[in-house]
């Protein structure tokens, strides 16, 4: 009875699929990640095809039709000057997505490079850089962003700079940890004795090894950056109205919550879904890339 339960020559198709492409299979196993991917796809499509999806002009004012509730003509209603909110959310997706990606990719690049160099060379400069990062991290994120944005002047560019500054230390630490670990590896030491220039070592060994945690961090950070930009916009420190930025829209809309509920609710929903999408996908990637998850 027992020897027939395992039949080694009869791999089921499922097992075969598992072994053929484990990466894709693991994504499929996790419905949450799939949902996240779906959300991301939705956002990207929205922002790319905005002009085709909606017939309205996001800046067109129509005072007579202001504060219209959701209807067949205006799916998400209109704002205080009659602009179609759904359209503005679509165009806002371009902004949020673009800003989020730009800020985090910049911060990621700068941070990784600084961290890799700092960790590799070590010594006093490394200590100084780490203290600097500690100081940036000593501030609560939003509070520091507010302070920087307020100092530089309230507009979208400065908000982006402020957020980029906050995000850099994480990447510095990540890359530095990789650099420290790899510095001791034998093949790196061998490369040094061969006379290979440091920048080559950093570029060819350290950075590629740091890619995997950095990618996870970037995905998660884009979600967070989108929220931060919107929060600054909501506080009046980021994109200024009439720019169709989701946070800026809510900064005006929230005062009308009780009378015209759709105005702040839908942009906020868009924010939530965008951020959720990135976080779910980032979380899913982390699960896949984390070796510990491979326990049966």
């Amino acid at each position, binding site marked *: 009875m027992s020897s027939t339960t*395992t039949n080694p020559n009869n791999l089921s198709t499922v097992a075969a699929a598992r072994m053929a492409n484990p990466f894709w299979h693991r994504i499929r196993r996790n419905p949450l990640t799939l949902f996240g991917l779906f959300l991301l796809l939705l956002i990207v499509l929205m922002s790319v095809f905005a002009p085709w999806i909606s017939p309205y002009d996001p800046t067109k004012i129509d005072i007579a039709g202001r504060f219209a509730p959701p209807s067949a003509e205006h799916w998400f209603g209109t704002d205080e000057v009659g602009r179609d909110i759904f359209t503005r959310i679509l165009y806002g997706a371009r902004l949020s997505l673009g800003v989020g990606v730009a800020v985090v990719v910049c911060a990621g690049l700068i941070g990784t490079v600084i961290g890799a160099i700092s960790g590799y060379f070590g010594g006093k400069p490394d200590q100084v850089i780490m203290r600097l990062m500690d100081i940036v991290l000593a501030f609560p994120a939003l509070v520091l962003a507010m302070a920087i944005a307020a100092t530089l002047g309230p507009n979208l560019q400065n908000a982006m700079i402020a957020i980029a500054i906050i995000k850099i230390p994480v990447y510095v630490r990540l890359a530095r940890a990789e650099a420290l670990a790899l510095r001791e590896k034998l093949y790196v030491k061998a490369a040094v004795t061969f006379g290979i220039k440091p920048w080559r070592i950093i570029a060819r060994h350290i950075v590629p090894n740091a890619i995997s945690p950095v990618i996870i961090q970037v995905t998660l950070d884009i979600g967070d950056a989108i929220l931060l930009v919107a929060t600054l916009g909501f506080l009046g420190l980021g994109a200024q109205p009439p720019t169709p930025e989701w946070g800026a829209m809510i900064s005006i809309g929230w005062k009308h919550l009780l009378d015209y509920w759709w105005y702040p609710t839908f942009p906020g929903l868009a924010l939530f879904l965008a951020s959720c999408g990135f976080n779910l996908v980032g979380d899913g990637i982390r699960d896949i890339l984390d070796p510990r998850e491979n326990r049966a």
Partner: protein
Amino acid sequence: MNMLLEIKNLSVSFSSMQEKILALRNVSFSIQKGEIVGIVGESGSGKSVTALSILGLLEKNATIESGSIFYKGTDLITLERKALQSLRGKEIGMVFQEPMTALHPTMRIGAQLAEVIRRHRRVSWREARRLAVESLAEVHIRDPELVARKYPFELSGGMRQRVVIALAMSSPPELLIADEPTTALDVTIQHEILKLMQELAIRRGTAVMLITHDLGVVSQVCRRVVVMYAGEVVETGTTDEVLRHPRHPYTRALIGALPDLAEPGQPLMAIPGDPPDLRRRPPGCAFAPRCSRALPVCFEDHPLLELAAGESFTHYVSCWGGKPDETTA
């Protein structure tokens, strides 16, 4: 009734992402009250799986395919969780292989012992702490009061294992399962720990299931022995008869591989080949590919565990060619 533990036709499998592995196949043996039985085999032979099955401590991906584990007449496999939980530690104790990680790192030794003692007996905290110190003394730990206040990281491996033994024996249990209790310890300490376990068991009348890969230990301490290979029982009997007159080629090879028995200047006898891949079990005897006396039938039909020919009523072997031949072991 002298029968304490009776394992009958136990089969256990593990499922991983790729496949299902049969780790135990029709394992059967028994342990009487108060006797010390050795379970011998190499890594992967299924010794630990058997032990964990008894207490229901298998991993989540393990399935008990068939068989029964009778403890004092009750089948532990069908027992409900609460009842099994009350058996653990109280009637059946267990000592694991790795003492360095076996104890709670942020609880003091005395507290860990007292907690377990209170689980088995209705005593106050103060009384439990007193008993804890006593049990430390029983496992020959010097300055038990001092040690009771320490944390595990302050103790050596040997001392930690003594504490683990004290924990397992605190009830005291009817059966102690010791899974390679000395393998991770220094050679000089191994002997002491074994002697300690033997002494405690005899004193309390506790039966011991001693899992080991060391035949020398078996010959010193165990009255009976069970030899396992590839998740199956291949031979069992009293230590005397199995070690002096081994019937199974694997047992013979194990004994032959002992350095003590080798002639000086002769090469050590190793068993050729590797243990089988449990994902692809052969239809016949699992040892056949490595057996120097394999017959064609060995590769086709699986032998049954039967009484070996001779006068003994306790010596069982699972082998087609297990009959005695001209060359006595």
